[in-house]
């Protein structure tokens, strides 16, 4: 069952990832990315990250990507044009190199973690909102506050950029 879910959503994620790169229209890319995020959220759930899965959907899919879609719609960005201005040679060599590199990394990962037992749903129960909140507001309080300041700066920056005629 765990394996089935993993394969299902991993393949969805990979498929959507490829689609993100290859689709010519930004909004198609955006929807592919949402697909990746959604399937990753399921995988997070499987790994015991229930809070982070919800946060993934709320923050990434529900806020950030809505912003992307909004901007794409606002700019009415059209398709990129068929030619990627990439010679066939570069395209195929690039794909080959990417595949080779991914293979290498997979090999290294397998070599580094040779005998890990399988993932079992429910084996890790620490990802509840309670646990994350505990850590976040004790050990990680300072980073938390710093990120809140960062968000504030980002809001101000976005306002300044959007408002003033630059």
């Amino acid at each position: 069952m765990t394996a089935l879910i993993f394969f299902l959503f991993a393949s969805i994620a990979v498929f959507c990832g490829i689609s993100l790169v290859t689709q010519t229209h930004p909004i198609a890319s955006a929807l592919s990315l949402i697909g990746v995020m959604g399937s990753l959220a399921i995988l997070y759930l499987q790994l015991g990250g229930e809070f982070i899965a919800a946060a993934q959907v709320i923050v990434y899919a529900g806020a950030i990507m809505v912003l992307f879609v909004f901007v794409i719609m606002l700019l009415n960005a059209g398709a990129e044009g068929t030619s990627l201005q990439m010679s066939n040679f570069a395209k195929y060599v690039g794909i080959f190199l990417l595949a080779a590199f991914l293979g290498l990394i997979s090999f290294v990962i397998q070599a580094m973690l040779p005998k890990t037992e399988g993932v079992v749903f429910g084996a890790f129960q620490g990802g509840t909102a309670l646990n994350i909140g505990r850590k976040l507001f004790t050990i990680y309080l300072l980073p938390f506050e710093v990120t809140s300041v960062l968000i504030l700066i980002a809001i101000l920056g976005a306002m300044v950029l959007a408002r003033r005629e630059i």
Partner: protein
Amino acid sequence: MDFFILSLIKAAIIAFVLLTTLAYLQWIERKVIAHIQLRVGPYRVGPHGLLQPLADVVKLITKEGVVPSHVNKVFYLMAPFVAVTLALISIAVIPFGPEITVGPVTTWMQLTDLNIGILFVLAVSSIGVYGVALGGWASNNKYALLGGLRSSAQMISYELPLALAVASPLLLANTLSFREMVNYQSGYWLGFIPRWNVWPEILGFVVFLIAAFAETNRVPFDLPEAENELVAGFHVEYSSMKFAAFFMAEYANMVTVTAVATLLFLGGWQPPFPEPYSDFVPIVIFVAAGLVALYHGLHPARRMDKFTLPATGLIFLGIAAIFGLGFFIPVLKTILMALFWFCGKLGILLFLFIWVRATLPRFRYDQLMRFAWTFLFPLSMVNLLITGLIVALSSK
């Protein structure tokens, strides 16, 4: 595999009841608005138009599904599907009543319980915007695009006060699960005031309701589909079942937010009166309604009333009898009482939605955004701060 069968049964019941409710919700809305505006509303199909939803469904299904030639087909077809799926999915974590034992099976009156049920609902509602935005964009029509744009901006803006308003009862109850939230609200202050979150969180409740109106694109925040500016907004290019899907999504969203409001603020299925008295309330109500119907049946104002009203009265009396039966079968009583109170609260809130639609004018777009960011958002923030203060002070 017991779990699967049980879930399947529950899912089937919930789906059936929910879809019927959605269909009839529209009938109720039309009726209520008609009566508020001194009209009769749907009247021809069935007694008092009761069969109107059925007729509508048949009409929508059999209609020709026109796909305009200039649309982006994939997304155009995907949008209503996304909208209705996301609208229906969050009902899965809504509990309708307490744990019950029917024969050998002990189960909750809920499809599934998540530790993070409330977050789940928030997450689903946060991606619900894609249906509308996508539909607006894929239609390749400027009115639809404007509707889609408005809806994205509006929904992300109002999601902030909504989430913050939700956070306050979470702080009080210290849980993210709907069940525990309802359990937290059980009991009574001074023996008769129900310990619902709505009392300490009255501000949060109001903010939640306002933001919920905006999230569901209802009047007075129905800018995405403003008929007189945008023709019909994001669904201007849709017809037949695809159009119906958007409609269903809207009503399903309404049901979801009212259910969440009920669970978070109004104590879920907890009765507003202490135990022995609350048991008699539904019987009294149904008996009274049945008697009134019978009485009017004996003095018919219209031709058909001679037949329909006594029948209705008898049905009401029958329902009262079933409630009465509950005194002898504890399980039945638990189920019925929970359903009665839950649906009663839900109904009141839904009526509020309809009422507001019939009375309030629409906002202008800039007013809408300013209202969200400069009033509702700070208000919910203040409310959250106050709640946090209360919790911090009372926890010692």
